[in-house]
């Protein structure tokens, strides 16, 4: 008898045992959903059908099922693993007996419920909410209101709101051309200047406009820019005629 070929028909899986193991190991089947007891029952049925005890198959089956049970237990109670491993054998036996007792009680309670349900199969009743149920036994959600107050509230809404001033939205900053002129004049006197020291003392908006002006100059090829590292001071150098020619040649190429 080949254990791995054992055909299973479980709630969560249908097919050979071998496939179930593969799917579990690949995490494609949630072991927590698999009822291992049903696998054992299927194996026992097969053994009984064959009419003789196959010790090799039993051994192999026990090893596989024990591994499955351990994997399942770890999956079901990850946080309890440590807690339970600290228990003394005596305490662990007590805990196991307590849990089995709880489960057996719940199985009996489930059997009682099933029996009860079977006995109640002749009880037919209406289901669903009653019309406007609850409106009479709950306090009203809104306090009584007077029509005058409602009228006053509506009148308030009907008046035209004052026009909004957008004055605060206008940004006041100098034109870019002002900085273009300033930088050009500076570069006529000096070949190179430091951007930070030029904008020192200016407002944030003015510094931004100055930066735009510097980029404009660079775009026009009037200056070259250097910066040793990110956030370091930017050095602005007047572009030489020769430099511009070289740049032009490079672009043409």
């Amino acid at each position, binding site marked *: 008898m080949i254990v791995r070929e054992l055909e299973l028909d479980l*709630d969560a899986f249908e097919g050979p045992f071998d496939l179930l193991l593969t799917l579990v190991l690949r995490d494609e089947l*949630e072991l*927590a*959903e*698999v*009822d291992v007891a049903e696998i054992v029952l299927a194996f026992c049925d097969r053994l009984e059908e064959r009419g003789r005890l196959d010790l090799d198959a039993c051994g192999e089956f026990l090893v596989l099922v024990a591994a499955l049970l351990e994997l*399942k237990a770890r999956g*079901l*109670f990850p946080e309890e693993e440590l807690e339970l491993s600290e228990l003394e054998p005596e305490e662990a*036996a*007590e805990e*196991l*007996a*307590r*849990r*089995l*007792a*709880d*489960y*057996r*009680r*719940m*199985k*009996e*309670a*489930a*059997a*009682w*419920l*099933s029996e*009860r*349900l079977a*006995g*109640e*199969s*002749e*009880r*037919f*009743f*209406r*289901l*669903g*909410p*009653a*019309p406007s*149920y609850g409106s*009479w*036994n709950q306090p009203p959600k809104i306090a009584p209101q007077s029509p005058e107050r409602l009228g006053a509230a509506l009148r308030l809404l009907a008046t035209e709101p004052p026009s909004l001033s957008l004055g605060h939205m206008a940004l006041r900053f100098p034109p870019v051309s002002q900085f273009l002129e300033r930088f050009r004049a500076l570069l006529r006197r000096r070949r190179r200047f430091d951007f930070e020291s030029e904008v020192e003392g200016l407002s944030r908006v003015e510094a931004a406009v100055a930066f735009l002006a510097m980029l404009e100059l660079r775009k026009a090829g009037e200056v070259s820019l250097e910066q040793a590292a990110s956030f370091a001071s930017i050095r602005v150098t007047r572009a030489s005629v020769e430099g511009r020619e070289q740049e032009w040649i490079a672009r043409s190429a």
Partner: protein
Amino acid sequence: MDRPLRLISANPVDRVARVVEGLLVVASQPLSVEDLAVAANDDPERIETALRLLGERYGEGRSGIVLEQVAGGWAFRASREAAEACARLFERPVERGLSAAAMETLAIVAYFGPCTRPDVARIRGVAADSVVAGLVERGLIAEAGRDAEAAGAIRYRTTPLFERVFGLESLAALPRLDDLGGEPDEIRARLEAVAEKRPA
């Protein structure tokens, strides 16, 4: 059998009984004595007397409608005599096809609720996610807050519909836990007996 005449008499309790009867016909879920007293604008003692009166009239074998005390209140249902005819016309979708796993989960929630899905899994030894979702969909259990100790896991309890479907007056009508089998000492003795038989 001679009660119908009393119901149309001018006796004040009869008048209350007629009002209660009307309320129970409109309601499709059990109404408590308190609910009925508020709706009928009468005192609870008189409502109880009226319910006793109605109980005599609407009993099995006397009427096609039966008054029953269920799920913490009073409700009408069809008589057992009419069950076969009802079954031809109506379904009982809530309880149809409840699996053994669902029954065990219901039992756990009924006895230990409000409890979380990990609580159910701990007792049954199988993940409870899909079973719990199925029972919520049927309306037999419902969310009942979150468990602050178990990382905010949702807790579940049984609903009045559960009590109604199973014909329980309240959860107190379930058998006592002590009366159900599963004595830890007995189980332990059996475990030890198995362990002793095992060759060393």
